[in-house]
């Protein structure tokens, strides 16, 4: 099982689980990152963090630390 953090740019992966608790986890799910969603990793910010991903047809940015909560296949 890999987390989104470990996926290199340019790959498309499928979400298998969102871990964590509380506001952060809910926020991630509210933004459309749920089980079975396809995520395309677009790029990493110039300073190395955060990430930019495409999900459900729009662009979303999230920190690598938060990306660790998203298990993907």
């Amino acid at each position: 099982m890999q987390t989104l953090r470990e996926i290199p740019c340019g790959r498309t992966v499928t979400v298998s689980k969102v871990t964590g608790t509380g506001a952060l986890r809910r926020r991630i799910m509210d933004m459309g990152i749920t089980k079975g969603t396809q995520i395309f990793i677009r790029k990493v910010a110039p300073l190395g963090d955060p990430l930019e991903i495409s999900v459900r047809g729009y662009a979303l940015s999230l920190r690598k630390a938060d990306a660790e909560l998203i298990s993907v296949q």
Partner: protein
Amino acid sequence: MSIKIALAGNPNSGKTTLFNALTGSNQFVGNWPGVTVEKKEGRLKNHRDVMIADLPGIYSLSPYTLEEVVARNYLTTEKPDAILNIVDGTNLERNLYLTTQLTELGIPMVVAVNMMDVVQKSGDKIFIDRLSKELGCPVVEISALKGTGVAEAAEQAVRLARAGVPMVPQHSFSGSVEHAIAHIEEAAHGKVEGGRQRWFAVKLFERDAKVREQLGLPEPLLAHIEEDIQSCEAEMDDDAESIITNERYLYIASIIRDCCSKKSQGKLSLSDRIDRVVTNRFLALPIFAAVMFVVYYVSVSTVGAWVTDWTNDVLFGEIIPPAIESFLVSVGTAGWLQSLILDGIVAGVGAVLGFVPMMLVLFAFLAFLEACGYMARIAFIMDRIFRKFGLSGKSFIPMLIGTGCGVPGIMASRTIENDRDRKMTIITTTFIPCGAKLPIIALIAGALFGGAWWVAPSAYFVGIAAIVTSGILLKKTRLFAGDPAPFVMELPAYHWPTVSNVLRSMWERGWSFIRKAGTIILLSTVFIWFTSNFGVVDGRLGMVEDLGDGFLSVIGSAIAPLFAPLGWGSWQASVAAITGLVAKENVVGTFGVLYGFTQVAEDGAEYWGTLAASFTPLAAYSFLVFNLLCAPCFAAIGAIRREMNSAGWTFIAIGYQTAFAYAVSLCIYQLGSLFTGGGFGIGTVAAILLAAVFLYLLLRPYQEESVPAPRSSVRARA
């Protein structure tokens, strides 16, 4: 009968544009009770009896963010007669997520699909009729930018509100979830009002703490509900919150399949192509620097400075005061009243208005950057640096502007959505030396350090160090403790903002500064005027010729001992520091007056000798640092009051800044004296203790103790 319609939608869905199109200039801007979230209301054009409330832009009705809670409370307690839900047609999937939650509230609803012009241009199709059928409410195609369909959407909402037909949610979750929800509805029957049983049932299923508290259900009932939830969780092998979110998105996916046909899949949109350059690995930072340079150059160095200088020097220097003076003389006003009006009130009003032109120029830029979508990219690019200090990537702009003037700098913090990041930014922005502090730096550098090159850069270094250490230190205090703000942020598609939206946003912010900050600035200017011009001479209260006889010098002498440990316990220095609160450059002029010079240059070169005789270099540097870091000028305090929207937080900000300045100056002076052979005393002990406490606060681990619920993931991250 008057009708209330709530305008709800995601951020970046064109909600503000729609609100402006619906209400025109009939708007009232305020704050939601008790929070710093902006509240806007307005009357619908051509319908005097219809009020439209613009809810904060939200992605969900979860109980976590301030904006979401505000929107939820409004929808469930104020009970608007209808909801106008705006969704972005180019991003239907995520936008409908909020829609599915809104339908459950049982309030009559109209969905307005915005940006239809863009959708059509890209060749995609949205079958409005089918969407309307699926959602169970009227759906209208609009383009808020072009104004098409806007009136129709509003008419529909008014019609529904008048008819009062409650919204019935059409979607159903999968079998076992529905089963559990039906059980909960049954269990809570009679406890919740009709029409919104489903909303409460779903929220109870999600274990929404706020709804539980609101309903106050008895313990056995809650335990019963908990059983239902747990059996469903076991069956679905997931937790309740995820189950609901998943089910919603699955339902939306089925709607999208039926109601949309996508043509442009796989093709890079214009926005993607812009982002390829703008957030590019190598180009992002240079482009960012260039944009910031333009913003700074225009709003602080050139256009902003010209208009502000004109307002200060010409309008409130050569035009208004002489005109009022000649009027006052012609009607034979008493001398003290003339002085009050001219030096107190007019000068105070001038101080408020003097900042406005510069601010308006800056606000126009900010409105443009926000509306076009670049502001979100700034946060994306700068986040890495700033989040270490408890700040947001967007804190860069307030700090940059703060090097010119702290007042617009503080006002620029409005662009930061997260409450905690914004407060932290407001508290720390004025640590950066602003334009008005430069004369103080020049004075100290010239008088005591022979104009040494390092004094000015060291002032900026002290400012930056103050921001960084304050960020780290405050982040760990109770005030700012809790979950770190999730940085899960949409990067909206770029689009060209309309001139009217930019101008409107610029004016709203400028006006709120005048209204909210103006009072504080005016009152404090009048106070300083009174205490510096009045005093007790020969046992009689009256106006004094010499600042040294006024009440201010009495106050200065009284508090001077406080500053003795910092190395500058003379009453002149205290008075200068106080007058610095009116405007920082006044420090230089005040010394001039107190040392008996009527006219001094901007850097006070005339009395450098006198100053050098009464200060040691170390004391002077401590004085400089104190004045750089302590409470900013009244105008900035007014701006802080405006942006904090709370007297308590304003005091916290000012108190922290002053205490921090005092501590740093004390350490500089006392430890400096120790190392330069000044001997060891009580002050030294105090300074060493203070430095130790400071280091402890800075280095102690980040604690999450004050968070009520265990948040293991968060702690692991911190």
